[in-house]
């Protein structure tokens, strides 16, 4: 089996069994860590060891989240940001996988484009965002563009490397069975790249969210990024941290979603890759 990046146990940094922890003990440690650190933070804020104006406190943040949910504002922001992230992810992934395929099929074109691709990918997206605002407006379009511009390159490189790594014996075997060039692409090279593409998608979904939030920072009137920027502008630390908490939860949810979808496509892989 050739090396490939996506394995089942790649969904987490380390599996419980590798760490020598039972599932129950693991959950207990995690909850314990959360309770202790939040408790310490709350106590420190109430005892005025830290300035609550600068650092807020867990209860204040929880209270803010409840208010935001009751007023329906949180749902509205989450909806906007989630929609932008999803669009950025899908558009970036389709363009990136497509471009990666084309480059893998055209080595000469790739050789010519190589430095340009590296240069464009190297541009900080925060610096590109103002340009996207000019091109795509201050609405949804510019945020999707920032997110997609990150996802595109991650997926491009993943697809390209996956296809280029295709085991030549497999290509020869299917060619000997009478495959045309198109059939080789669809039935060998592209499926071979799937674990790379899945790994790329997993990495890029979090980046789609980052890109969208950057876009919302630059120019927006809605979305979690806007809410965080707006709260920051009014020195409302509670608002900033409440927004960050929701962003973190979104990142975890998106990651789980893509990981689950990805496992469907890599089910054929052995559990243990030597």
């Amino acid at each position, binding site marked *: *089996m050739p090396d490939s990046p996506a394995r089942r146990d790649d969904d987490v940094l380390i599996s419980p069994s590798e760490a020598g922890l039972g599932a129950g003990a693991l959950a207990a440690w995690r909850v314990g860590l959360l309770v202790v650190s939040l408790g310490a933070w709350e106590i420190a804020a109430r005892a005025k060891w830290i300035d609550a104006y600068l650092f807020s406190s867990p209860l204040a943040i929880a209270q803010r989240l409840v208010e935001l949910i009751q007023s329906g504002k949180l749902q509205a922001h989450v909806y906007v940001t989630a929609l932008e992230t999803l669009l950025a992810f899908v558009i970036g992934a389709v363009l990136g996988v497509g471009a990666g395929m084309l480059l893998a099929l055209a080595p000469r074109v790739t050789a010519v484009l190589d430095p340009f691709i590296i240069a464009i990918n190297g541009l900080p997206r925060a610096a590109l965002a103002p340009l996207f605002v000019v091109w795509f407006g201050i609405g949804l379009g510019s945020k999707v563009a920032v997110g997609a511009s990150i996802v595109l390159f991650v997926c491009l490189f993943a697809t390209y490397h996956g296809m280029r790594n295709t085991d030549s014996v497999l290509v020869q075997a299917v060619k*000997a*069975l*009478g*495959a045309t060039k198109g059939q080789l692409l669809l039935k*060998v090279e592209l499926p071979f790249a799937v674990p790379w593409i899945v790994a790329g998608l997993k990495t890029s979904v979090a980046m789609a969210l980052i890109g969208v939030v950057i876009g919302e920072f630059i120019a927006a009137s809605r979305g979690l990024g806007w809410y965080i920027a707006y709260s920051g502008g009014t020195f409302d630390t509670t608002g900033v941290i409440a927004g960050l908490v929701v962003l973190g939860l979104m990142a975890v949810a998106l990651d789980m979603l893509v990981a689950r979808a990805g496992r469907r496509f890599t089910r054929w892989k052995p559990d243990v890759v030597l």
Partner: protein
Amino acid sequence: MAAVVELTAVGKWFNRGTERFAALDNIDLVVEEGEFVSIVGASGCGKSTILNIMAGLMRADEGRVRVRGNTVRGVDRKVAYTFQQASLLPWRTVKHNVEMGLELRGFEHARRARVAMDLIDQVGLSGFADAYPHQLSGGMMKRAEIVRALAIDPEVLLMDEPFGALDAQTKIHMQNLLLETLKKRHMTVVFITHDLEEAVVLSDRVITMTQRPGRILREHTITLPRPRDARTARLDANFTRLLRPIWDDIEPQEARHAG
């Protein structure tokens, strides 16, 4: 009998760095219909290159190559090829791997499933039709690879050291499976191997090759009676007598290689 594979004055050059060397030089070889011909030689003698040229996977630089009466320009759809290395697609089940050739030919789903399952049954893999290659033993993978080749109903079977990576026991099983298959199906086989005993057990003719540039040294006709059994053929009184001259052709090269 008609010639199914005809190589006339075939030559092939390879580049290694700036150096250009002849891999094959002036190869003349005719394989008749229904014949089983093995090509043996030390590593690097170009025997796999000959097979690749026959299969249309590689072009000859000199000479003429004809298979089934046609000049070879690409892969012939009535010619199948098997490899030494594992070559099943790891993301496909055994059944879907075996169906591949028919899928590429645009056969409808029900028909290719029927052909595949029938062949899978014949080699005793029915219980593993839905298994993925990594769940199979080396011998099972080989069987799946052979039936994948048979599924396209080939007239010519080109085999590049197919059993090279197997242990001795499994190898004999696979040799018998091949002998059994050839009793039932009329095919012309060109077989590349390192294993001189294997060549004698299976073949009608064994071609020995020299090393660099690869040239045909001699051909040996194997007169062991058919049907053969891979185990008992080795015990035939004539077996050693037939093996000896082949051994004498190859041994000095292998010794030089090892030294």
